[in-house]
């Protein structure tokens, strides 16, 4: 431009209320003044920058920017110019960047400063994750949100393929807002200052193998790194007993990548980093399966005091101790939740749930979880139709006369809610076993009796008894012990 005139005038607004204009002045005319005229006002200025309010009324008319373009800003008495007002959002503010080392996840939170803008605008957030001091870009995502005329805290999670301890991670964010009623130039905001999560390789005393004692599913690919102190040299890194090629991440951090990990032993697979001074550092990886959905979930009551649920667990998870698969039984009607004590080494799975007062229908959800996954099975059951009494005890036989006997036995449990059906097996040396069915009212912790007639005099008999629910048969109890009795002579 001509000598000494203000050059490169740029006007930017971050919020459509205020704008900041800035221009250059050639060095030979630095101490002079610039006259700045906008709409009907004129300012005479020493500095090269000016903040002023935008004319709100015209902003709300679609044509404002067009009008600006037609009615040039009078830059100075001697120079007319045209400026295209640029809209760029203010630089976003990162509120927090939180690492979860156990899952190698970064959690980013920032404010969308939505209160500045009208309702419902589309906002786009570009987030970059970088690594190493050289800020190598690892990932860049664009995240969309709607502004709601309030300042909302937004969050975004990112899971690294590399343990966060292995090297420093940096995050920055910028934003683009589609201000529909402003048809002038729009651009991305500036990048926010970077937030950093330091790797252990920047901690003078930081050392170790990472991730530390983690659990993954069979078939996973896992990257391990060995962070060592200055001056130490790694001779090799092994997974289980197999050495792996090392990848240098930084001067104090080397990594190996294990692909398609297979199930580990009960004590886990050791990942060992050997140093030239003979010392070892290591971590343990547990590789297993998410729990299978329990099959054949079945619940019954032996005594109307406890409900016993059993199920088939499916494929073993391969995880033990505090990482084992855990079961809990939740009953929707009562809202009660019971955690089940299960021995992972034996295949049978049983869980007890208390019978609730005045409740017959139970809506069970068996929840199953381990560090790799979770699942559940459900069952709706009327326990009066799922009675599996305990073995009858203390069976006694007494004689009335030479052809009839009186049997008495005891069943532990309270069956007052139902009728019982009991079956008596009668056997004697010289005739086939006979079964005699008898039904009776259930009692509470009580004894039951039956009379058998038409027996042979002076004959040795063996009796045993089992019981079940009379109205809704579910399962017989086990047989009682056999009781022998010889009828009296005729």
């Amino acid at each position, binding site marked *: 431009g001509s000598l000494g005139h203000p050059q490169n005038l740029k006007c930017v607004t971050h919020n459509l209320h205020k704008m900041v204009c800035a221009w250059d002045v050639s060095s030979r005319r630095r101490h002079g003044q610039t006259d700045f005229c906008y709409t009907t006002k004129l300012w005479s200025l020493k500095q090269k920058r000016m903040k002023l309010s935008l004319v709100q009324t015209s902003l709300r008319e679609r044509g404002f920017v067009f009008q600006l373009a037609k009615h040039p800003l009078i830059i100075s008495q001697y120079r007319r110019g045209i400026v295209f007002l640029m809209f760029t959002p203010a630089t976003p503010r990162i509120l927090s960047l939180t690492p979860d080392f156990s899952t190698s996840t970064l959690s980013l939170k920032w404010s969308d400063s939505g209160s500045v803008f009208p309702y419902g605008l589309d906002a786009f957030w570009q987030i970059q994750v970088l690594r190493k001091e050289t800020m190598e870009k690892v990932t860049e995502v664009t995240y969309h949100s709607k502004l709601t005329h309030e300042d909302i805290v937004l969050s975004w999670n990112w899971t690294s393929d590399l343990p966060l301890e292995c090297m420093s991670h940096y995050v920055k964010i910028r934003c683009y807002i589609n201000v529909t009623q402003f048809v002038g130039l729009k651009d991305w905001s500036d990048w926010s200052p970077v937030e950093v999560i330091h790797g252990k390789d920047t901690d003078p005393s930081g050392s170790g*193998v990472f991730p530390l*004692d983690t659990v993954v599913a069979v078939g996973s690919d896992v990257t391990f790194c060995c962070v060592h102190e200055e001056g130490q040299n790694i001779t090799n890194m092994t997974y289980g007993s197999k050495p792996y090629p090392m990848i240098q991440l930084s001067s104090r951090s080397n990594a190996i990548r294990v692909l398609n990990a297979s199930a580990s032993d009960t004590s886990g697979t050791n*990942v060992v980093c050997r140093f030239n001074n003979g010392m070892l*550092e290591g971590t*343990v990886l547990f590789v297993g399966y998410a729990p299978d959905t329990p099959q054949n979930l079945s619940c019954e009551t032996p005594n109307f005091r406890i409900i016993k649920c059993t199920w088939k667990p499916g494929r073993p998870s391969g995880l033990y101790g505090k990482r084992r698969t855990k079961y809990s039984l939740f009953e929707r009607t009562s809202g009660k939740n019971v955690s089940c004590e299960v021995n992972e080494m034996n295949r049978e799975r049983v869980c007890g749930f208390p019978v609730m007062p005045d409740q017959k229908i139970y809506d069970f959800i068996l929840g199953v979880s381990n560090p790799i996954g979770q699942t559940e099975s459900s069952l709706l059951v009327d326990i009066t139709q799922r009675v599996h009494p305990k073995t009858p005890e203390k069976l006694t036989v007494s004689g009335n006369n030479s052809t009839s006997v009186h049997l008495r036995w005891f069943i532990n449990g309270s069956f007052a809610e139902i009728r019982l059906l009991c079956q008596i097996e009668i056997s004697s040396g010289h005739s086939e076993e006979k079964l005699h069915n008898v039904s009776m009212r259930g009692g509470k912790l009580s004894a039951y009796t039956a009379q058998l007639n038409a027996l042979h005099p002076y004959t040795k008999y063996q009796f045993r008894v089992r019981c079940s629910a009379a109205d809704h048969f579910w399962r017989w109890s086990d047989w009682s012990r056999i009781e022998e009795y010889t009828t009296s002579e005729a």
Partner: protein
Amino acid sequence: MAGADSPSAALQRRDLCARGIRLAGKMRADVVDLLEAYAERQGLDASASVAAVEGVPAAAVERWDEQTGTQRLVENLAAYRAFRALLAQMLEEHREQLGEADAALGRALAAVLLQVSAFAYHLEELLRLESRGPPAEEEEEDEEEEEEADGPPPQPLGLFEQKLRGLGVLRELAQWAVRSARDLRQLAKPSPGSGSA
């Protein structure tokens, strides 16, 4: 040891020493078996080099010949009390990490812990015979007070470090069993000046 022994005390000490030597021999054999099983089940190289494990008294001792009988017994007792605590911790960690999954290793660990406890009790018997009595065991609280004085509790060990520490504890225990047998043989010698205070 206090003054020359009476014949019955000397006899009793020799008997206790003889039984102690047998206990140490049995313990050593069991510890060596356990060490092998432990290394294999934990996926470790049995010959892996392990840094000195904190809280494990070293079996190697300088000028072993010059030690008095009481010194031998006191050092042995301190070592086996330390091993008792360390093995109890290993057993707890085993249950937490493996639950029922490796019950055999758990039983073997518990068996060695039992032997170590029995051996410690045996040493206390010998010290009582010295009419000196065993030093009182440091109460749990004392240790906690020390920890508070030293600042925040140490970072929990990673599992691999736990495994290595277990290896180090069992190795050192096997060495101690050898040393204890030698110490008890020394104590059992009839000469009047044998290791008395």
